[in-house]
């Protein structure tokens, strides 16, 4: 049976009088790659920063590898590799100096051959001064410093941000390798294709609330379907809306929409009309994600 690596129970966080996390409940298993999806301001970064005790929750409980970050922050951080969403590094250091500094903070327990291997794979020059680095190179430094101590838990906030597609693929490969070696990966992203590519499970957060937790595969193959119907005559818009279809888009005689649940009611409705063509496909994660952010707007144009 898999053991829980990270657990959130009713996590709440307020800034001033405004609550931004309204009771997050999540469990992430050891060795799992868990995607955390949500738009800007949904609460992804706040959730991750609570895990490291960078900010103090107002309620609820968190554990990482059985430890409470508020009671034992140093131990939690020694088990964790973190890549912040907004990465800022000491300007007066070179890439090598950054790694040396962070290695010293970790008590010098570092495999320098591994650091060099990571830099080689990400095409990062160790002698490059931080102040002359591009955003992409800084992000590479961020990725290396998160991975270099071979942590038990990886917390990655938008790990591929600012990287070119080739390096993005290499970073995802490194994350997969870390998970294969036993690390638990909790990562947030806007790039749904990469979540789809590497995450076994994911959660979708919206306005500080978890609106979905599912296996990526299940979410993609869930009863949600994208349907396109070409009618011989006028599209029965009112009846389709009455069925509760999502994201209905009509152009001439063509109607495209999403249907969640059984298709039986739809088929009964279509039976009453002359249908020229019908196509039904499973949506991409991108489309599933958008369906959670469509706000039930049935006339949303894809």
């Amino acid at each position, binding site marked *: 049976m898999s053991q829980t690596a990270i657990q959130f129970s009713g996590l709440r966080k307020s*800034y*001033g*009088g*405004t609550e931004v996390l309204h009771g997050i409940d999540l469990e992430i298993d050891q060795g799992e790659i868990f995607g955390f999806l949500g738009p800007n301001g949904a609460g992804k*970064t706040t959730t991750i*920063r609570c895990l*490291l005790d*960078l*900010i*103090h929750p107002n309620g609820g409980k968190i554990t990482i590898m059985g430890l409470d970050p508020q009671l034992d*922050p*140093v*131990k939690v*951080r*020694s088990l*964790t590799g*973190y890549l*912040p*969403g*907004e*990465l*800022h*590094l*000491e300007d*007066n250091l070179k890439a090598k100096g950054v790694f040396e*500094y*962070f290695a*010293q*903070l*970790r*008590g010098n327990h570092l495999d320098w051959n591994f650091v060099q291997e990571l830099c080689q794979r990400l095409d990062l020059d160790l002698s490059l001064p931080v102040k002359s680095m591009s955003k992409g190179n800084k992000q590479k430094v*961020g990725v290396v*410093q998160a991975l270099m101590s071979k942590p038990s838990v990886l*917390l990655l906030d938008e790990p591929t941000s600012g990287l070119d597609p080739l390096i993005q693929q290499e970073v995802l490969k490194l994350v997969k390798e870390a998970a294969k070696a036993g690390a638990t990966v909790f990562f947030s992203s806007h790039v749904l294709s990469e979540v789809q590519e590497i995450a076994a499970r994911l959660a979708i957060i919206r306005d500080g609330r978890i609106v979905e937790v599912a296996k990526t595969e299940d979410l993609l193959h869930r009863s949600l379907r994208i349907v396109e119907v070409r009618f011989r005559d006028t599209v029965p818009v009112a009846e389709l809306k009455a069925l509760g279809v999502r994201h209905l888009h009509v152009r001439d005689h063509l109607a495209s929409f999403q249907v969640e649940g059984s298709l039986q009611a739809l088929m009964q409705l279509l039976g009453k009309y002359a249908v020229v063509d019908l196509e039904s496909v499973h949506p991409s994660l991108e489309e599933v994600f958008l369906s959670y952010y469509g706000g039930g707007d049935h006339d949303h144009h894809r």
Partner: protein
Amino acid sequence: MITIVKQTLQRLRGQIIGWGIALGLFGMMMVSFFNTIAGQGTKIDDLLKLYPKDMMAFIGDFSQYSTPVGFLNTEFFSMMPIILGIFALLVGSGLVAADEENGNLDLILAHPVSRSSFFWGRFGGTVLATTLIMAIAWLGMILAKLWASFSLDPAQLAVAFLPLLGIIFLYFGVAVLMSMLLPSRKLAAMVTALLVVGGFLLNGLSKIGTKLRDVGYLLPNHYYQGADAIHGMNWKWFLGYVVVGFVCSLAGYLLFERRDIRVMGEGQWRIKNFKGKTLNSE
């Protein structure tokens, strides 16, 4: 914590060298000049007696100008609380806030470093850097003794630096506390600058006018001995500086320990309305 101390010293390396050499050369120059001043005999004393009394209140006792202690007080130690006070308020207000406003703190504290290790590591490194700057200034004076006849020995000169170290430590502590109380490093530096410069001016004025005399007792400068410490160090006053500076720093630490770390940038005022709800938050 040692790593943080070392890293702080490394970051302040340029400042230690810059401030240290500047003050060292200044000290060296002053000690070298003393021969010329002493050679003038009573002429300088007679000239200085003509200066307005009000001026004495700001830059020391002119009647002692032709003595090594009086000369150092007037030419070096009287202005040092302001000069090194600027250094203290800059490094104090940026002790934690500089990293936080630059966005570096998030990643540092994501490593196995407690907030206390980080804070006290930075604190230790900065206090050490300040002491090193003064040590270089002291060294400049000692070196000048190689060619200038100056009756004060190295130990006496070191004693003269102690009240300066004390008052600078106090300013540093106040700046640290302000940076934790106020939304930005800039604001913390400004408020501390008011104490450093305003304190100097008010203290001078309190010596001139009777109305401000009592105000003087409330100011750190009132208890600043400068080179007069050579004639008898007031350890109570020195301890007072250290205690106030440390209490302010401790209060700053306790605030740092309890609050959220910002991702980057300056904070906001946390003003509560009549219902107790925060209007602006970080």
